[in-house]
């Protein structure tokens, strides 16, 4: 485990440093600087210069970059330019909402995909497997914004079962919060659930064709036990990797889903930051997303090596 970490950590750190550098430089490449935008069209050059000095934008690029890194490492990200408030607080609030949405979606992904794959494999009816395959193809082919609008049309407008959008605190009004959470989480979960179900189904089918399954069958082990105790543990590791990659997709997908369902998460914040040119917010958010993405990939690899001991000593 330790050797594994030693091998993976440096490359993860390298990606992070490169990403932080890219994010920082990208925002500095923008024509026109935030000081001019903030000062307004009629401001005198002196006002612009004063704002630039206050924001620290008159310092050399290397110094600005190190200052920013220092802020990031200390956790105090300073004030936002245009949205108002401290960046750390803005991100904290958005993160809490997005975290709820992503975790709910992740739960739904597993709850939808694992039974589907197990059922498709154990039912052994060609027609059923075909139908499930067509459904997963459909879920993958249709963009999330299409699914989202269709879900609203059916469940909110047509059936009137669930609210079309909004957000309630999970602690103050749990039942209301779950109602608000249901549609966006389902919308976010469907494509990832389809991918996971497909990988798991393929993995299970491959495992069921192995010699040890034939041996177990010959020894009179029940089909159910073969599926759960022999096929599933062998099909799980690749599926976990896929699930880990999907978490990144969920975070990115949340940006659009939050917009459709008026969910006050990181997606809304990043959109505000971009449209109002609030560079600290955009810069810190982009870095946060990359950090989260890299961390998830690391965790996935660790989990993989725990599920499949052969990977540990590579």
């Amino acid at each position, binding site marked *: 485990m330790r050797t594994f970490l030693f091998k993976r950590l440096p490359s993860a750190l390298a990606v992070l440093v490169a*990403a932080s550098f890219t994010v920082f430089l990208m925002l500095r490449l923008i024509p026109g600087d935030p000081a001019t935008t903030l000062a307004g069209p009629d401001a005198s050059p002196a006002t612009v210069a004063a704002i630039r000095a206050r924001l620290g934008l008159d310092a050399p690029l290397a110094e600005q970059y190190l200052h920013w890194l220092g802020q990031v490492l200390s956790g105090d990200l300073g004030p936002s330019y245009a949205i108002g408030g401290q960046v750390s607080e803005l991100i904290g609030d958005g993160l809490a909402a997005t975290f709820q949405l992503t975790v709910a979606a992740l739960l739904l992904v597993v709850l939808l995909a694992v039974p589907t794959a197990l059922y498709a494999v154990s039912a052994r009816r060609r027609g059923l497997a075909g139908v499930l395959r067509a459904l997963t193809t459909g879920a*993958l082919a249709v963009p999330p914004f299409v699914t989202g*609008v269709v879900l609203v*049309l059916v469940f909110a407008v047509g059936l009137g079962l669930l609210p079309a959008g909004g957000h309630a605190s999970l602690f103050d009004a749990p039942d209301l919060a779950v109602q608000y959470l249901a549609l966006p989480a389902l919308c976010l979960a469907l494509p990832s659930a389809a991918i996971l179900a497909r990988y798991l189904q393929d993995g299970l089918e491959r495992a069921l064709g192995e010699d040890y399954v034939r041996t177990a069958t010959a020894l009179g082990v029940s089909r159910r036990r073969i599926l759960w105790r022999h096929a599933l543990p062998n099909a799980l590791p690749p599926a976990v990797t896929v699930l880990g990659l999907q978490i990144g997709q969920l975070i990115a997908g949340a*940006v*659009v889903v939050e917009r459709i369902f008026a969910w006050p998460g990181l997606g809304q914040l*990043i959109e505000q930051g971009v449209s109002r040119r609030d560079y600290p917010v*955009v810069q810190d958010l982009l870095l946060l997303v990359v950090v989260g993405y890299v961390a998830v990939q690391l965790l996935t690899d660790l989990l993989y090596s725990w599920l499949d001991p052969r990977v540990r000593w590579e």
Partner: protein
Amino acid sequence: MTTISSPLLLKAARPRNRYVAGLLTWRGVSGLVLVGTVALAGLLAPWLTDADPNAQGPQALATPSGAHPLGTDDIGRDLLSRILHGILTDLSIILTAVPAGALAGAALALLAGTSRAADLVVQRLFDLVLSFPGLILGLAVTAILGPGRWPVVIIIALAEVPYFGRQLRAGVLVQQEREYALAARVGGASRARVLLRHVLPNAVDPLIVQGAVALSVGVFIEGALSFLGLGVRPPEPTLGSLISGSVAYLDTNPVLAAAPLAVTTALVLGFTLLAEALNRGARG
């Protein structure tokens, strides 16, 4: 003689025919029909409707009638005309962006084929682009360039570069070690010539499948950016902006959402079916 030579000929002619064979399955044909119908409707837009897609009329949110076959939107623009022209916008975007992404990815993959050092740099470059989830990349680009048609093209192209690049790189690595490539080298051909004239033509086939996938991803990205207000500038219609504009009127005017939803679904489903058909064809 013919009995001996025909299997050989068949074998040599196989790769391209395989893709054609893939297209002639039910998946391929329905994919072609879906994409073809939508594309044709877009291309024939000027003949199918007289209405200007951006002209505002006196009747807002009108129900379907003779003058407006699908009704009008919230500021009185003809919905049918906006959908047909929206198809054109989407097609022109993805048909610029996907070839551009494929070319850039292929160029980088060939560069990776020249030396181990170049290979390492190119691979890290692909990793870096992939480490930004697609939409985050889009947000970053629009943060720099502002919203508009060209940023959308750039984002789609950029997001596709590593996928095309990785696929071709894998093919180039395999083909470079084959006897014919080594023979060409021994025969005195330069490294660049072997790469371009011998290796590339043999490694390029898998990109066809990737291309079909990329086209549907392009529609995804355009729509997502429109939803975030970072896509093509209004009033120019796109499939994504038509759907995102309809969200406020879902309970009163569902046709405003249903029509562009149906067209978008048909288009992406068509591309997906084509990709699957080509992929199955390639695997024989």
